């Protein structure tokens, strides 16, 4: 709950550990404590889900209450006096942790969650006592194939039910449940059913331990080797806020980042795999006619061919924008097309539309459609129109940004200059192709379907001769005799911000260094 909204609400006075605070009426006591820096451990509570109060970790004492109460389940009330660190509360936490650990397997060395595990963290912070029992542990299934993306280790599960609530409340797909009782209680799906809703990987994120693991990520990296960079998912027009986790120059996973205005705490399963393309079938070097060429030669040839085409018939030269390109790349291309080449034929292309739902997924699978249309000044001619113009001969030369999968007939148009990121029909066919950076290798902004201009950040270093679109376009403009002199993506952004109304409130944001998920930055 933000400070702004609380000021309009009725406030209640609460004493926490002897200090007096004011909170909006009805606020959850656990969140109230967190907001003033009082630490309370929890497993089952999650800010994006309802509170079942099953883990009993967040118990606190409230004056007048005969028993300790779960703070995640208790709204603040006026004149409430709360104690979070009395010997009794600390003892209860320790005893609950002892119960939780009773049947927990000794898996840390082989567990994917080790290093970002809430159980490890709470044990270390709040328990710190060695085992007292010497009995054997209850054995359960170690590898349960729950669904397309998820594997369950029932022994590691601490029965917090977060995953069940994610399915019920976020995905609206009640697929998971608890079965049996006591020490034999397990997480499971109904017989014959699978965990296959399009938001299933969120269960891995919310799992406080290593019970649910992603088939894609498991056993690939230890989490403390990862560097986290804040960015935006390029998978559709929704533009979920994400963190890109990489190690040694390779992206290992994408996880959602909290953004109340867009995706809250979640993202869809499809978006999780957007990083695969970054490391697959990349166009790494400049090429002419599909063959490797020196970058400088390719650049000069592209400029020569475009200049000749414009001189021959300006009306037969077109430019193809990409709905996957950032606002910065699009702005640079718009300037090149308008100011340097003076061409009017503007097309727009991107990934084909797909399925959608009412939760997060957009039918438009391009991250920046709204930004590209805003910069180009309205809807662009589509790819069908492009193909028709090529076939009819109305288009003799084409400058393409992105759109690696675009297939055009041999010889038409006569000049095809492509700034593109992946191998494919476009590179094979292009007169000149220059290697373009992907969303993960650049700084820039995407405009999502709601109109939020959101920052993407460099997560991994661009390979080979790969360069950001705005830089390639600036070099091309230079070869055509009119370099824009862009020093950085931020400079392009600043220029675009001044020109386009939809960007006027956009902010570049502070520089953020990649966060090493270890020590103080560990998520566990």
């Amino acid at each position, binding site marked *: 709950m933000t400070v702004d909204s609380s000021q309009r609400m009725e406030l209640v006075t609460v004493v926490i550990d002897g200090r007096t605070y004011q909170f909006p009426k009805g606020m959850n006591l656990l969140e109230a404590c967190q907001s003033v820096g009082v630490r309370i451990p929890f497993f089952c509570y999650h800010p994006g889900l309802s509170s079942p109060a099953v883990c009993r970790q967040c118990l606190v004492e409230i004056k007048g209450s005969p028993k300790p109460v779960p703070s995640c389940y208790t709204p603040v009330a006026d004149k409430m006096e709360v104690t979070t660190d009395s010997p009794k509360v600390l003892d209860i936490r320790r005893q609950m942790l002892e119960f939780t650990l009773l049947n927990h397997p000794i898996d840390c060395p082989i567990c994917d969650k080790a290093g970002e595990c809430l159980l490890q963290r709470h044990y*270390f912070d709040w328990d710190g*006592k060695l085992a007292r029992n010497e009995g054997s542990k209850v054995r359960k299934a170690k590898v349960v194939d729950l669904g397309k993306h998820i594997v369950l280790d029932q022994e590691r599960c601490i029965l917090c039910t977060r995953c069940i609530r994610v399915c019920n409340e976020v995905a609206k797909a009640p697929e998971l449940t608890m079965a049996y009782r006591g020490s034999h209680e397990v997480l499971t799906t109904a017989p014959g059913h699978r965990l296959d809703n399009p938001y299933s990987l969120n269960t891995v994120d919310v799992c406080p331990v290593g019970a649910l693991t992603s088939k894609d990520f498991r056993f690939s990296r230890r989490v403390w080797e990862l560097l986290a960079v804040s960015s935006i998912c390029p998978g559709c027009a929704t533009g979920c806020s994400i963190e890109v986790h990489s190690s040694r120059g390779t992206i290992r996973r994408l996880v959602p980042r909290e953004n109340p205005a867009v995706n809250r705490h979640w993202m869809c399963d499809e978006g999780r795999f957007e990083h695969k393309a970054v490391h697959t079938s990349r166009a790494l070097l400049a090429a002419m006619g599909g063959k490797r060429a020196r970058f400088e030669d390719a650049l000069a040839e592209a400029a020569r061919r475009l200049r000749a085409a414009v001189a021959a018939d300006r009306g037969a030269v077109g430019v193809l924008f990409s709905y996957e390109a950032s606002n910065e790349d699009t702005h640079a291309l718009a300037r090149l097309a308008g100011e340097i080449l003076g061409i009017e034929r503007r097309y727009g292309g991107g990934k084909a539309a797909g399925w959608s739902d009412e939760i997060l997924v957009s039918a438009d699978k391009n991250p920046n459609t709204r930004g590209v249309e805003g910069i180009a000044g309205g809807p662009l001619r589509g790819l069908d129109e492009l193909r028709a113009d090529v076939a009819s001969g109305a288009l003799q030369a084409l400058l393409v940004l992105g759109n690696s999968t675009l297939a055009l007939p041999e010889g038409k148009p006569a000049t095809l200059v492509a700034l593109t990121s992946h191998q494919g029909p476009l590179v094979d066919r292009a007169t000149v192709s220059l290697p373009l950076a992907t969303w993960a290798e650049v700084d820039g902004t995407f405009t999502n379907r709601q109109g939020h201009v959101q920052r993407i950040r460099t997560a991994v270093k661009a390979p080979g001769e790969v360069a950001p679109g705005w830089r390639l376009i600036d070099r091309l403009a230079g070869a055509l005799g009119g370099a824009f002199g862009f020093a950085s993506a931020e400079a392009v952004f600043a220029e675009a911000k001044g020109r386009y109304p939809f960007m006027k409130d956009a902010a570049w944001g502070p520089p953020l260094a990649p966060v090493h998920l270890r020590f103080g930055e560990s998520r566990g």
Partner: protein
Amino acid sequence: MAEPPIATPPARRRVVFGEAEVSDYDELDGLPTESMPLQMGPSHPAMHGTVRITLDVEGEKIKTADIQIGYLHRCFEKESESATWTQIFPYTDRLNYVSPMLNNVGYALAVEKLLGIGDRIPERAQYIRVIVGEISRITDHLTCLGASAMELAAFTVYFYLIKAREWLWELLEEVSGARLTHSYVRIGGVVADLPEGWPAKLLAVLAKVRVAVADADQLLTRNKIFRDRMDGIGIIRQDEVAAWGLTGPVARSTGVAYDVRKDHPYLVYDRLDFDVPVGATGDNFDRYAVRLEEIMQSMRILEQALAKLPPGPILVDDPRLTLPAKRETYNTIEAMIAHFKLIMDGIHVPPGEVYSYTEGGNGELGFYLVSNGTGQPWKCRVRPPCFANLAVLNRVLPGLFIADVVPTFGMINMIGGECDR
């Protein structure tokens, strides 16, 4: 205390070739000469490969001396910011590398002060720390005296003392597994108990060390050649001690009886009986004599500590501070988590800052630590005693002969690993 007498150099005139008359020459200064820069080190055997002194000499006389350090800079303090609190112990071994145990102990005490667990360290661990620390002090002084004697051509003495040092290092190897880079101390205690029969071995070695030190004493202390190079050379006045921040044998040679073990007792030093030897004139010989006597005092401490050594644990019993036993780690999830967190995240030291100081081989060895609550120090700063001690050479050397640089530098006992960090 009265100021000790200092030989004031006779008045001299600057003589430059071609500009002066023969009658200007100063008989006391010898032949006329002109000022000449002379580099001593870093590749000079007596500079130990780790320091350069740029001398401005006139003939054999030193006009100015510029001490240039840093040849052994390893970014120890910066490196520490990316290591866990425990991983820093091996780095401290390489500070004063002739007395690594003292650095281990000094660092551990600093972290323990920040953790507020100073009173929970088991008594046996405290005694063991005193024992290994005092052995290190002896090896430190043996090295200093032996090397200085060798640099003044007394090669025999060097072998007598270095042989004794080797006996002691063998004992420390038996305790820690490493001859020189022990990494033996841990936050909360020491990593392993003393081996079976080790105290008796130490007593036997101490008897042999006594003989070696007595031999060196006989060969040096009343040796005219040695005394001529030491007496009245490199005098440091008592009032300079505070001004230059001098500590250790260098400070004590001037008569200042400052010893952290006596003045701010730590571990169990307040339960042990020992004297703090002091000099009178603050010259090279006093520094030699102070060190010689400190070896004897350390042996006194060792004998008492061995006699008082109590049985009991050697590490704090707290899985959040010390690694659980391997048997526990492999068989219980609690110990496994503790082990994992201690190795991967390090000990969680509460936010705060601390300055903790102990008596190192060369004087007050201080650690200034800042924690932000994570498993790594936010800042780790060392006060190396020989950094301050070395600085005073800048004042002491001018007026001496070139040949005096070697014993004066030797008796300061600059250790590159510690000074340059």
